[in-house]
């Protein structure tokens, strides 16, 4: 007679399950639709490097190569040149004419950031660095430099990645 008992209790089970579903429907969702949306990263995240500028747009990097010599895997190449009144890149006498990081070799240890005497290079928040060819992982100066518009203040922190925003309900 088990069949009779289950027939009678069935709707109750269903009602209980529905209750659970309805309860969760009121909570916010936790799934993030990567890569359209990304999780906020901690402020000291060691993602892809950023080369910074001063408020007036001049580059902070002087091409001293201390980051390159501090780097344990030797993935930074810097070549310096002299500023002239006609071609001024950084405030002092010297600037980095060439600045390249091999992002495939980089172990994201942050020692370059520690070594830099001018806070010119910091580890940024970007970690989504997939691409389809090894050559595309040689980040040149243009890739690493902060865009001119972003240099709002001397002390500007690395620009944050698009953070996870509350997702509008679709139903």
């Amino acid at each position: 007679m088990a069949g009779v008992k289950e027939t009678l209790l069935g709707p109750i089970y269903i009602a209980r399950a529905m209750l659970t579903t309805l309860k969760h429907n009121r909570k916010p969702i936790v799934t993030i639709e990567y890569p359209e949306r990304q999780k906020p990263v901690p402020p000291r995240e060691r993602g892809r490097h950023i080369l910074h500028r001063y408020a007036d747009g001049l580059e902070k990097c002087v091409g001293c190569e201390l980051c390159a010599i501090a780097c344990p895997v030797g993935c930074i190449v810097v070549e310096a040149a002299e500023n002239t009144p006609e071609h001024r890149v950084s405030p002092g006498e010297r600037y980095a004419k060439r600045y390249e990081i091999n992002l495939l070799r980089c172990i994201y240890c942050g020692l370059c950031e520690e070594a830099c005497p001018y806070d010119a290079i910091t580890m940024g928040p970007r970690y989504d660095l997939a691409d389809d060819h090894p050559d595309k992982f040689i980040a040149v100066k243009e890739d690493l430099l902060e865009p001119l518009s972003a240099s709002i203040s001397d002390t500007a922190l690395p620009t944050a990645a698009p953070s996870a925003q509350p997702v509008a309900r679709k139903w």
Partner: protein
Amino acid sequence: MAAVQTETVTLTVNGQSVTVPKGTLILDAAKEVGIDIPIFCSHPKMAPVAVCRMCLVEVEKMPKLQPACAVYVADGMVVKTVTDQVNKYQKGVLEFLLINHPLDCPICDKGGECPLQDQTYQYGPGASRFTFDKAHFDKAVPLSDRIVLDRERCILCWRCTRFSEEISGERELALIQRGVHTIIGTYNDEPAQSNYQGNWTEICPVGALTSRQYRFISRPWDLDRTASVCPGCAMGCNIQIDARNNKIGRFQSRENVAVDDSWLCDYGRYSFPNFQRESQERPRIRRNGALEEVSFDEAIGFAADQLTQAGGQVAGWASPSDTNEELFLFRRLFRDVFQSPHLDHRPGALPDPEPEDTSLPIADIEHLDHAILLGGQEVIDAAPVLHLRLFKSQRKGLIVHKVGVGEGKKALDAVPAEAQAVGVLATEANKSAAVELQSRLSKKVKGSVRRLMITTGPNGRGAKDLGILPHLGPGYVSLNGQSGKGRVEWPGAGLRAVYIHESSPLHAFATSDAESMWLPGLPLLIYHRFKSSPLDDLAHVIIPGHAFTEKDGTVTNMEGRVQRIKTAIDAAWVREDWRVMQAIANRLGAGWTYADVAEITAELVRALPPYAAVNQAERVTWSENR
């Protein structure tokens, strides 16, 4: 010079006993037992001044600390270089030096090889207590077109001013103002004229004096360093080629007491842009009037075929900056393979060379009492570092007579009969006058009279020794009737081909008027060279070769000293010059089998025993073997 019996003294440094000759400085005595005393102002080639106070040490029974760079040792002295008091003074000296030092190491060319950096790490205080604004001075002041001075970085060690007073004698740099306002400068801020300015950058213990050419080019740890010889002139100063990414960044000096005494001239030091390769050039041959690119093998085949057609009517010119190994093969190629005696390395007509032209070694100038520069300044210009040796000797008592080439009589009268050792220095062009003066002097004075002829190019002497001459074979042997024609006689000699080999644009084949009339009509011109020149337009075969800085080999300086040069810049895609010569010879049936440069050197030494000096970096002496 008779060996002087030197008195010795024994002292104790940090508990270690050391015996040194009397008149040694504490600093040098400590070095004997491997104890390093930090210094800034002291320099082994200059008199002590003890202005930086970095070398203070404790000496027992002396009330205060003593500067090790200026106090001579005494018997029984007890020196302590590592005590609390010494340490405290070293920290204090460094703290004072750094008060106004800008510490802009990140943009300073000396950073990474800077004694101030190193010693601050080793002996200095970790932090500064000075919280006020630093004194500011001018930065990046051009002292000349070669030197940049940063007055903030200067620690007033006086090394540069002492160089200009004691080493070059030109007194161009001076300390201006007093106290904290003291700066280094030239008279009236006029650009410095000296030909020895590059040395200031090497002796400056900070980055105050730096080279314009090397400015921001590299960091010391990026450089690949290769020992070599300066390609500038026949002096043969030893250099270190510092290259970054296979590109020369600078020439630095490399001390050889017998030759350069650790200095270089600016002409040689700053000549390296001439040796930068601009493009990856391929061999070219002229077909129907136009040059076309071909492979090395094709160019060699073409050259060999054309040379066969020319028969023995081939002349060869090898530049005086080729290595001995290349010259050895070049001579064999002409004398043995082409059967042609028309061989030369000289820019024009010159008096015949003789082994006696090197009877006065460079270092022996210091032991002369009279030196005659026949041709005056011209002699110095031909081998500029010679001036520093002469000036050093003058400070020790040498009398230098600078006379014109025609004024031998004046020099003869000026040298007294009781002179012990007399030297005659002249360029090889003025050799006849020098030999005449030498023989007249020998009759007049009691002592020896020797001469030193300044050849052209870093290996002009080697070219003569190896017989790149129309009328002399290797070792100056006479060719007994088989003499060929020298370069000046080539136009109009009915030649059908010329092979020019040169590895340095500094000593290239510069065409004379007669040659520029003659060369365009020549049926075959093979131009085997490092850098392109107007001769390219006339050549029928152009074979790229290695530069002086891109190959291994040996070169012989004007006094006959054989020194090695090594590959500093890799240009492996260019076939080595000697391999090209070997290939041409083998196409003509020679059967040479040299596998590397060392084999050629070995054969050269077998053929010419005095060149055993190669392996000892010694002078080639011809006395018995002729």
